[in-house]
């Protein structure tokens, strides 16, 4: 299989913040590469001057009345956090100590 493609797939796993085990690295990477080869059938199409469809609906952004409404409360928003207190989500340090 195309080594450059496999490298690209490994890089995508990095960007997606997925650490693959050795076994996964072998099967997942080659399966993704296979899909990438399959979807190249789109190369048969003449897509020159065709505008893309990223969404089937084209609509003006709907606006609601400028009135204060109750959204999610803070306790509700925080209650599923794996680590947090009454006001914040708590996460491990962002900067390393050295």
């Amino acid at each position, binding site marked *: 299989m195309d080594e450059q493609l496999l490298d*690209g797939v490994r890089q995508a796993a990095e960007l997606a913040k997925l650490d693959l085990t050795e076994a996964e690295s072998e099967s997942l990477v080659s399966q993704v590469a296979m899909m990438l080869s399959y979807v190249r059938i789109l190369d048969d199409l003449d897509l020159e001057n065709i505008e893309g469809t990223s969404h089937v609906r084209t609509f003006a952004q709907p606006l609601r009345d400028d009135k204060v409404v109750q959204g999610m409360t803070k306790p509700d928003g925080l209650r599923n956090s794996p680590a947090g207190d009454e006001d914040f989500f708590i996460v491990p340090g962002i900067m390393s100590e050295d």
Partner: protein
Amino acid sequence: MDAIGRLLDLRELTVIVDEQGNVTFSDLPADIREVARSISGVAMNDILTMGAGQLRDAVRNRELSPVEVTTAFLERVEAVEPQVHAFLHVDPELAFDQARKTEADVMAGRGGVLAGVPVAVKDIFDTRDMPTTAGSRVLEGFRPPFDATVVARLRKAGAIVLGKTNMDEFAMGSTGEHSAYGPTRNPWDTTMSPGGSSSGSAAALAALQAPLALGTDTGGSIRQPAALCGVVGMKPTYGRVSRYGLIAFASSLDQAGPMARRVEDAALLLQVIAGRDPLDSTSLDVPVPDYASQVNAGVSGLRVGLVRDFVEQDGVEPDIRKRVLETADVLKEKGALVRDVRLPHAGYCIAAYYIIATAEASSNLARYDGVRYGLRREVPQGGLDAMYRATRSEGFGGEVKRRVILGTFVLSEGYSEAYYQRATRARTLIRRDFERVFRDVDVLLMPTSPVAAVGIGERAADPLSEYLLDEFTVCLNLAGLPGISVPVGLDHAGHPVGVQIAGPPLSEVDLFRAAKAVEDEFSFYTEFPDL
């Protein structure tokens, strides 16, 4: 009566689901269990096989109480779950709470459109009082602080939410096997997959565990399992039903829809869940027709296009081809005008779909990082980034990882033009194919799935072979169009076969009419699997 009185007051009821998916109601006292059974065998079976509309009418007329109905279905769930594993969470306590509330409403003359009708809800919908996992370890223990709009509408209509149904993780899969909590089995043949990703919802209906179910459909996840389980499933027009509280897979394709054993029940359920929602800016601000009253309008004069590209394709099983052609004849006999149509770009749907769906998924699933909800894995001496990686790597299953990686790749610098941008242009051509055929016909007829049954584990080694199960359903999602799968009988091996009817935007009434005409001919809802 004493025991029924106590049943009404029951507060401390818990359900235990063991590793094999066996369900027991631990604290259900023996005498209450006895009363539940004494709702005689015949009557119990009648309740289980009644349509949702019939149940609602019986409840409104006070022939059945919501508590009786709920008891009958919970007993059925308990009896067949070891074989089917359609549910991830069953909640008798909440179900009885809602049943009692509905009973009070009915007594006060305020029975809603679904008064006393149990509904099985796919675990992708947020439910305020119940765990919601989307079939993933990464959401284990998550209890949403709100109800999805569709769930809120169900409750308001008097429906009884029985529990949450099993599914492929984040709706990514076509067999139900990608659930982190074990596969659901097809009630018609428990060695077979029920299809997916709404595997539990479809199986629960076929196994008579519920008369109605909610599903979601990003590339066929309502219609394909409906076909494989011999039930009715509709993906409405994109925007017809609110997506608020629906855990996102691919936002430009996801749509919630009704599943039922009968067409008119699916129409009734859509009636309740459809409509504009201020909480979903993509929901359509278009009045909701009275679907249920129009299902019997017949097909006289309806112009039906038979999609030759799909019917004649090599991968379609002969029994399925035969059934679709028979259905075309039935519609013709009933007064429809049937002609052949072509969709020249149909062969590109799977490729375009898997690029677009995975691209959107890679972005939507970035939120699972261990910070705000669900699983968190920290790494000793590791920082924030290490936590993200450990959480995602442990929390996601193989299929989700495959798709997130694929989606990240097709959006990444240097590749997005060749992959993602090309796919969106192909999507435009696919849309135009439909716009063209709908100038000449009102609805399209085609197979729902190329095969009637898939063995559990059969396609696990080759993802593309699983993806191809969706080749007749994904095109509608790409174009935002509605489609319905309706069962037409069994194949030579005893597995259900469904046909798919599709239409232009907001043609749900026509789809229900055509599906009901097909159902009237084959009456598949009178057949049940042996469990």
